[in-house]
Structures are given as C-alpha cells and as structure tokens.
C-alpha cells in the first residue's frame, strides 16, 4: 500500500461525504462571511480557503458539556426522604475533525498534558479525544496575525494531527501521521500520492516563509520575569483592552472551564462550560475578594499562562500555537505577539523542550 494518498479535486466532496457515513465529521463551513466548524451534511457550504473564525476546540472540548444529569424524587410515604438519581454522560461518538489547521491540532496537545497525561485524567475530554481523528489542512498562506513559526509550529506542522492534507494544483495530497490517519488511505477515491509529494513539500515551504516573525529568529521567546512583573507595562499595554472573552473563546489553546448546576424544579444537569481568565468573575472568590480585579492583571495572567507558567510545568512547551485569532478578531487590536515581543529577555532564547515530553517537537517538519 502507498504511504501517501491523493484525492483529485472532483472527488473531494464525495470523499468527505464518504467519511461522514462512518463517523460524525466536523468541517469548516461558510455562513455569511464567517467560517465555523459544523457537523457535515450535503447542504453545507464547505470552506477550506481560510481558517475558521473560531478554533475547532469545541469538537473535543464542547463549550458546554453535560457531565451528568440528576433527578430528585420524593418518597410519597415519607416526604422528608428524597432520592437522587444520577445519569452520567458517556456518549462520545466516533468523530473526524476534518480541515482543522496545524495550529488547531497543536492546540489539542496543549490540552492533553493537563487533561489526559496525568494520574487523574479527565474522562470527558479523554473519551472524546480518543474517539476523534484529526485531519489537518496545511495552510495555503499566512493570514493576518498568524505567527505559528515563532512558537515552534508551522503552516504544515504535524504535531497533534492524525493526517495532513496539502492542497496541490489538481487536488489534495494526503499524508497519514498516526495509525488512525492511515485508515484514510483506504477510503474509496484515494489514489497513490507519491507523485504529488514534491509539489506538496514545495507548497508547504513557500507558505512557511510567509509567516511573520514577531520575536526575530527565535522559535522559543523567553519572557523576562523582571519585565513580566512590572505592573506599569501591563497597565500601559492593556489600557485599550475591553476585557471581553473573544480572545479566550476563539483560542485553540485556552482550556479553562467552570462547573455549574443548571436546575429546574426536580431535575437538572451539572454542566462544564468554557470560562475565560479575561472575565472579572473568573477569579471572584466567595468572600467577595477578587485577586485579579483589573483587566491588565487578567491579561497578564493570560500571557503568563501561555508563555511562563505552562512552559515551566510542562518541559518548556509554549501554550500558544500562534494561530493569530486573538489578534485578528480583537475589537481593539490587542496584539499578544507584540506584547510577548516587548517582554522578551534581550538576546535570550528559552531552553529547548524537555526530552521526556513525548509531544515535544514531535514530527515537526512544518
């Protein structure tokens, strides 16, 4: 069997349709002028020309997820006695995330460390993650705000993907990366791709050169703790911030959540929903005290998590994949890459990723 595949343009939609008979397939769709991931159906207007406005993180980490539902039943004989019935949600269907971008796929590896690679894995995330095959689309150009190559990624970086697709002149070149990805080659309509490998590589290299480099030549910006701790810097840089949550909710590497019980009279659900560190309520304590009462403190945490705390905890891995969404869609154009660039320790590069981290820099020829 061939190592790589090729799908001619005219068989492209039929190929995706074929996948949808075997699993739930999430694809980027054009609605108005917005690209958004939706479950595939024939009526959808698929869009692979540019990355989706919002990252596809919701496919594995839904915006709101029912952990379990509960029901209270009063004993008619002794009304003081109430029975509680719990139903756990374990419905994780087989899923294909199709047309994610390399930065999106890398994002899931950022989630994996706290959610699955621990002694207490998160069953909901893990359940969906294991059921999902990530088929990534190499980027055809660099878009406004993109800086993936400056955070160890790239427009054809394979970290986190099960297979990668590169658009070539006559169709789509398919490279399997994992065992899950290899099954794509057996789909009807997939031809031997070896003749297109050279063209695809050339395409990938050309795009790589287009991505802007906000941190100079380094691919591991090292944030200076001294600069990071200066409140005046943050106050000035974030004066314009509106403290909305667009950056965190569009981000493929933001994974914070909140848990609430959503009651009706005798039943309800415990749900986990996205939360964002840019909201005032995020750190509001029961006493009424809020350790991060101002927007600059909240944004400082956002940058700190991605470029300082996470790398410290997880073998120097930066928790930002440079997708540029927070820059592109910020209503007041706050630019995280500019902020990190201003925080860089002059002339320093962060240490390379640790060798015992299995995701570190893996299979990255993007």
């Amino acid at each position, binding site marked *: 069997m061939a190592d790589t595949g090729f799908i001619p343009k005219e068989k492209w939609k039929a190929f995706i349709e074929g996948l949808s008979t075997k699993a739930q397939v999430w694809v980027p769709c054009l*609605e*108005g*002028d*917005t690209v*958004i991931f939706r479950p595939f159906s024939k009526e959808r207007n698929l869009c692979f*020309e*540019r990355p989706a*406005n*919002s990252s596809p993180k919701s496919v594995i980490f*839904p*915006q*709101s997820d029912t952990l379990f539902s509960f029901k209270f039943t009063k004993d008619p004989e002794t009304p003081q006695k109430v029975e509680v019935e719990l139903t756990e949600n374990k419905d994780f269907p087989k899923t294909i995330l199709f047309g994610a971008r390399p930065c999106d796929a890398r994002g899931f590896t950022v989630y994996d460390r706290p959610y699955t690679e621990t002694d207490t894995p998160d069953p909901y995330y893990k359940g969906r993650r294991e059921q999902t095959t990530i088929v990534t689309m190499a980027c055809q*150009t*660099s*878009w*406004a*705000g*993109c800086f993936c190559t400056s955070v160890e990624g790239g427009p054809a970086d394979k970290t986190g993907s099960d297979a990668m697709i590169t658009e070539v002149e006559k169709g789509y070149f398919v490279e399997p990366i994992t065992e899950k990805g290899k099954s794509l080659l057996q789909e009807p309509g997939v031809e031997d791709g070896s003749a297109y490998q050279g063209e695809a590589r050339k395409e990938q290299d050309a795009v790589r050169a*287009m991505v802007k480099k906000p941190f100079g030549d380094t691919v591991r910006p090292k944030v200076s703790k001294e600069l990071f701790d200066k409140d005046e810097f943050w106050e*000035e840089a974030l*004066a*314009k911030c*509106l*403290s*909305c*949550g*667009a950056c*965190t*909710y*569009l981000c493929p590497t933001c994974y914070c959540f*909140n848990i*609430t019980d*959503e009651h009706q009279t005798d039943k309800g659900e415990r*749900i986990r*929903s*996205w939360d*964002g560190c840019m*909201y*005032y*309520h995020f750190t509001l304590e029961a006493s009424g005290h809020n350790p991060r009462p101002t927007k600059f403190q909240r944004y400082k945490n956002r940058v700190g998590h991605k470029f300082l705390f996470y790398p410290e905890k997880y073998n120097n891995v930066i928790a930002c994949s440079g997708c540029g*969404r927070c*820059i592109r*869609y910020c*209503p*007041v*154009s*706050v*630019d995280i*890459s*500019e902020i990190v660039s201003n925080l860089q320790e002059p002339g320093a590069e962060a240490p390379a990723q640790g060798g015992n981290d299995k995701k570190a820099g893996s299979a990255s020829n993007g």
Partner: protein
Amino acid sequence: MDREKLKNVISEVLKDVDVVIGYKEGFDKLHATPCFITKPEQIDQIILNPLCVQNLASYLPSLKKKVGVVVKGCDSRTIVQYMQEGLINRENVVVIGIPCTGIVSVKKVLSKINHQPIVDVIFGDGSTVIVKTQAGEEKLSISDVSPDKCRTCLYPTPVIHDHLAGDPVRSDKKPEDVYKDVEDLSAMSLEERRAYWEKEFDRCIRCYACRNACPMCICQDSCIAESREPHWISQKSNLTEKFMFHMIHALHLAGRCVECGECERACPMGIPVNMLKKKINHDMKELFDYQPGVNPEDKPPMFTFNVEEKKIEEHKL
C-alpha cells in the same frame, strides 16, 4: 480627515489633561488601534483615516482622570448619552471632534480581498482605498466597504465638541432612511424572522465582545449573563440561552443605544447584533419621538415617567 490639524489640537489639549485617547496603526496596515497619549513625543503615532473605527468615547466612564478624547460624529452621541445618564463628569472630558467623511468596515474590506494578508493600505482621493495584499492590489470605493451606519449617518460632525479638527461636514442622508434595514427585516413573516435569528445566533460563542464593546452596557462586571449569584442565565451554550442574552442586551439599551455599531463590529462571529438594538430604537422613536445621544438636555424616556404618554393609549383601553 486632517491628521496634521488633529495633531496640533492634541498638542494643545495634552497640556491640560492627563491622557488623550486617539488612534494609531495596529498590527497591520488595515487595523487601527486605540492609543493613550500621555507625553508630547507620542503624538507622532497618531493616525487619522477611515480605518479609525473604534468608538473611543467608550473608555470615558472607567477613566477617573482628566481625558481628551478623539470622536467622530457617531461616537460623539455616546458622550451626550453619558451626560444625560450622569455617567461622566463633563468637566473632566475634553472632546476633540473629527468631522467625518465616512469610515470603512474592516470586515467588508477583508471580504472583498478574500482575507489575504495585507501589505499596505493607501487612501487615494478620499473616495477610494487601495489595498495591497500578497496576492495583488485591489482598488475599492469607500462607499462599497463602508459600515451600514455610515450609509445613513445624520451626524458626520460631532454633536458635541470642545475642539473641531477640521471644517464641519453636512449630512446628505435622509432621516427616513435610517431604519430602512429594520423595516425590511420587520417585513418578513414571523417564521422567517425567527429562522433568520436562529441561524445568526447559533454562531454566538457568548464571548461578550458585543457587550464589552458597547459604550452603553454599563453593568459590565455585574451583567446578568455571568452573574453566578443569583444565577439568572444558564451557562449552556444552546440557542435559548444565546437568544436570552441578546434580547436582554437589546432591551437594556431601549432608548439608550447611540447606534455606534460597536457591538456588531466587535463580534468575531459576524452576527448582525446591531439590528436588534436598532429595531428597539426604531420603536422608541415611534413611541416617544426620541433619539438617543443627540441633545444633552433631553431626558431618556426610560429615565422618566409621564402619566399620559402621547402615543401610548393605555388609559383609553
């Protein structure tokens, strides 16, 4: 739009205030970003062109100092509304007005150039913009890429200002056209309208960019959408909850929305959220003959009470 004149005004104003809020170039040539000028040497950063889209007046209630603020005609209505509602101390605000000949919608430009990365943006004779991208060059007519609010703008010259950086501009738009889009939408059947909004709101990610960009959304950190005690709205991301949030947003702005369009501009998912607020403003206009943010002496209808309203005939039922 005269950048040199604006810079001169800012130099003067800066002598008497702690900060002047203006615009500078953002992360690329297509995006302007608000800038907070505190020192004379920063004035050179200032830009003034149709990319200066944000409503800078929105920052005023949160700044507890003396502020100079650059406002276009549309933005100036925010200041008037703040005065009506007692949200700013007028003495602490120096209003630098920009007579505006129209701005561009960055979303519309991006759509026209197929979202290609920007190399340069050049404003030609005032009616066109040349956008250079990695894929080539596109000459666009500003009127083709202007936000909807510019197409019916009645107040191109700020309705309130302490300085005016340029000669006043007169509107050539008709007042009866302002709510034409709302009337068109209202003409749809109930089922069609419901389907329309369901489709639009389904994209909402509840990021609250619309709320935080809104100059009149003054509850901010106490918004019912996030309040956990009491728990007014569920955190589920289903259509019902999204609808609920947007309806509350719109209703809280009844007779207060100055139609700056920031909610819609801020939305990362391209939802036409401004239309809901315009619809309610339209109703307020019909009922109370009131337009928000025009005259500082006015009392917003929801801030007062008349036993008999001219157009509400509840006593005659």
